[in-house]
């Protein structure tokens, strides 16, 4: 049996799945202490459960999002080695930094040496400000980590009180700003994240569960807990990934459509194309800063079922909630109340709803019905805007190869998979308003936990091999080095890359059976002749490999499609 838990901002959802059937599901309000929410959900799921033959536990958590909420500038110092190029002073780094000498070029050649006197001064500058966590980031450190690692060792030897991390071990992505920011955020969250993981392991042990435990990543893949502990940032925004994979698990494996997940305070919109969610390959924003975390491409709307109805100068609007909803006996007229009033919701009505609507009605001189309809239309219009944004993003995804452009754009899908609390209501409204296919799957309200439970382990690796420099590098943290053998042909390079990929899978325990290795696919392969003075001096190979994101299992309970 599988367990999936999604700790969201408002609710924590849990699900117990046997093969392809939901045995039990739990939804509770999320506590301030997330560890307690996890404990509660797990306890409820396993209560009176005789068969405790659990083979897989996957946790998706909003912990990192919470930890970073409101953190404008993590108390981390950066030692930056920019080399030639853009002015780092105009770049968006998330922490204070000192610029140092030392540079590497795109081939991994050292083109400027380090000045260790500068390093000493920089460390002292940060120590004077009581900053003891330092990032070292050098452009092209994934092509050659030598300078970053030299500085790391130098600081470790002389300043044992300093926690120093080189950017090449956070990510090998070709984007030093993202690597630097990612490393800074990682340094900031890693201790607390580690403690949380420790408590989670203990909770699992208390329930005598003895199976692989995974953490859901932002791209919808999973990592074994002990590996995930080293890369806390990877788990950020895993909630929408859980929902997206939930949409897949509860519909069809090869579905194409918009994923619309309406939560309490936010609505997430994603795109699934033939069963593959659209990715933000380069990474995402955290608090306005770019980080190298590969994630699903999502559009988020700060509106949900709990959003409050406002009116100002006769203008109606929807804003974040302040107080308890009317249908629950509170005084805050929410979007859900509007759905209840319009009889679009299965929730039972409450006199407070009409009272609140009458109040507005009096103020702005329009009927309650009229007001409710407009609010509904506003909400739908905001969703439509985000859907359009999503389509544009998909259509304007940059492409660097001829075949990507020739294969052309598919037509925009006209299917919406509605998830979350108000899924049923919004689904039927959307179905009335347009001629699209609207799917509200069974278990729509806990599809996120289902997605977490069933998400596959995945890995994507971009390898660059430079035979003239005798080096290889990848997008994965810390994975680069010298070539031990000469690779002459693309086939030899592919074999090399594949072996490396399999090695990483083994190290990270991503595959448990040889059969899964068959899922590895090569997504691109290119060989470039390095020609100097009309002679071929070696080759550069670019190879991309991945285990596609996907599901370990599908639910077979069928779907309710509202047409």
């Amino acid at each position, binding site marked *: 049996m599988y367990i999936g838990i999604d700790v969201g901002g408002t609710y924590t959802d849990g699900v117990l799945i046997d093969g392809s059937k939901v045995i039990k599901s739990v939804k509770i309000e999320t506590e301030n202490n997330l560890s307690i929410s996890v404990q509660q959900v797990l306890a409820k799921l396993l209560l009176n459960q005789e068969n405790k033959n659990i083979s897989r536990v996957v946790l998706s958590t909003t912990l990192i999002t919470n930890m970073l909420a409101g953190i404008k500038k993590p108390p981390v110092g950066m030692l930056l080695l920019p080399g030639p190029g*853009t002015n780092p002073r105009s770049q968006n780094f998330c922490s204070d930094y000192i610029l140092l000498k030392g540079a590497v070029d795109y081939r991994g050649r050292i083109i400027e040496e380090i000045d260790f006197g500068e390093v000493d001064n920089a460390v002292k500058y940060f120590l004077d400000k009581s900053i003891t966590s330092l990032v070292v980031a050098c452009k092209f450190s994934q092509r050659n980590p030598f300078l970053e690692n030299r500085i790391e060792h130098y600081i470790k030897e002389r300043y044992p009180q300093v926690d120093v991390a080189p950017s090449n071990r956070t990510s090998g992505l070709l*984007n030093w700003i993202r690597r630097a920011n990612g490393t800074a955020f990682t340094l900031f969250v890693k201790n607390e994240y580690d403690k949380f993981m420790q408590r989670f392991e203990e909770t699992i042990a208390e329930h005598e569960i003895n199976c692989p435990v995974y953490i859901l990543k932002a791209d919808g893949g999973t990592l074994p807990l002990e590996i995930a502990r080293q890369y806390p940032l990877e788990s950020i925004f895993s909630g929408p990934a859980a929902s997206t994979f939930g949409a897949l698990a509860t519909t069809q494996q090869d579905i194409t459509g918009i994923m619309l997940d309406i939560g309490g305070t936010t609505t997430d919109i994603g795109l699934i194309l033939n069963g593959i969610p659209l990715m933000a390959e380069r990474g995402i924003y955290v608090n306005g800063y770019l980080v190298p975390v590969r994630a699903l491409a999502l559009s988020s709307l700060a509106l949900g079922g709990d959003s409050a109805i406002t009116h100002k100068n006769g203008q109606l609007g929807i804003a974040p909630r302040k107080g308890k909803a009317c249908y629950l006996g509170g005084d805050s007229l929410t979007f859900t109340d509007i759905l209840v009033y319009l009889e679009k919701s299965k929730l039972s009505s409450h006199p407070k709803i009409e009272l609140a609507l009458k109040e507005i009605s009096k103020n702005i001189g329009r009927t309650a019905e009229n007001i409710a309809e407009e609010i509904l239309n506003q909400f739908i219009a905001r969703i439509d805007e985000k859907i359009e944004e999503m389509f544009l993003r998909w259509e304007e995804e940059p492409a660097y190869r001829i075949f990507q452009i020739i294969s052309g754009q598919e037509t925009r899908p006209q299917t919406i998979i509605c998830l979350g609390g108000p899924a049923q209501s919004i689904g039927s409204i959307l179905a009335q308003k347009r001629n699209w296919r609207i799917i509200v799957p069974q278990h729509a309200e806990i599809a996120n936990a289902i997605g977490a439970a069933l998400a596959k382990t995945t890995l994507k690796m971009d390898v660059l091999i430079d035979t003239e420099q005798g080096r290889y590098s990848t997008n994965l943290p810390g994975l680069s080095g010298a070539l031990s053998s000469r690779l002459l042909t693309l086939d030899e390079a592919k074999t090399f890359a594949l072996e490396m990929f399999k090695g990483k899978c083994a190290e990270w325990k991503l595959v448990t059976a040889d059969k899964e290795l068959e899922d590895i696919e090569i997504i691109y392969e290119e060989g*470039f002749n390095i020609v100097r003075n009309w002679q071929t001096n070696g080759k550069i190979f670019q190879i991309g490999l991945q285990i596609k994101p996907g599901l370990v299992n599908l639910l077979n309970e069928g779907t309710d499609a509202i047409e």
Partner: protein
Amino acid sequence: MQLNKTGLIFFPAFDWSISPTHPEREERLLYTRDQIFEEGIPDSSYIREYKPRLAAKEDIRRVHFCVPDVEDQTTEAHLISAGSALKLGDALMKNEIANGFVMARPPGHHAMRVVHGNRGFCNTNNEAILVEYLRRKYGLKRIAIVDTDVHHGDGTQDIFYHDPDVLCISLHQDGRTIFPGTGFVHETGGPGAYLKNINIPLPPGTGDKGFLRVWREIIKPVLTKFDPQLIINSAGQDNHFTDPLASMRVSAQAYGKLTEELQPDIAVLEGGYAIETALPYVNLAILLAMAKQDYSKVIEPQFEPAAVKQDEGITLYIDDLIRYWQDALSEDVPSKEDLFGEGKVYQRKKSIYYDTDGIRENQQETVQYCPECPGLYQVSSTARDQVGRGTSIWGLSIPLFVCDRCLEKGYKMWEQAIKEGKEQKTFAYYYLQDKKNDNYLKE
């Protein structure tokens, strides 16, 4: 929307080359890609990245007589390279961006109006395709093209030689010392477009100083006077001091400076074959300058002041060149009628060599004088490859801003030509390019 952004299409065509060791090969933009991505350029708040698209065949026919047809002269890569220019042109005209850099390959500025094959690594002229597209779709008229590639932009010159509304300026290494061997000061445009073609042939060894001086003292005043609605920069990068095919001494800094001052609306990558030592830095400097960002730290690792210093003799020569152009441009321009001369017909014979494909083309151009419009343009052309195989074609081009009389006359000529062609089979193919009605025919 986001008016201050610079649009970028980066299309390295990692799956296209002329041949494995040819300078125009897959590797060409590899290190530029590395530099631009590592710098986080596509993420920057001042950049909007676009996805390339294919140009339509009509877009090509609006400019070229492709022999025998568009599909014979273009690969998908060519259509994407041209389409990338059109995409940013659209973005610019829709005010989505302040300006744009088409960093795509293959290049195009050696492709002339008649295309029998590849010359100077080019088949189709991206800038010309962009100009005609923008004029047709958005009603623009006066457009300037400033070609800063080290090679004379002879294709662009050829296409707009008789167009008074397109100002073509090319600065380049003197044609006596480098391909294509043209681009001299006396090539000033046809009689209907006199001084709408300006060539600035620079001596080998010209450095940053000379490069920027001719910009400031020749090109800038000409541009100001012409007052274009749009400026396109053919942003070749082979004036760089490390370029293996040329002999100039220009740095990324000077390219940045020129771009900053020129303020092109659209820059289109042309040549530049120092793919490691120049392209990553020059491309970045141009892009940053377009986005009004600081490019002062884009310094090549090989850079030293001596690398861009020009000899005293070169400085003196450039002084003379500047004086020549300042004099020529201040003289009174004779009337169009006088320039056409007695017969009221301009005729020119031209021999064109296609270096990549080893083709020799001989052509004769005829432009008819019209007081109302640029006049009808005819070309007959015969091309032979090294073993003597070849094709002869005839083409008639009706300009976009044609007068009614010439338009009518043009169609009569076309009817007549194809009638004669059917009887006498003088030419293998007949082409009609009616830019006014966007009508392109082939017989």
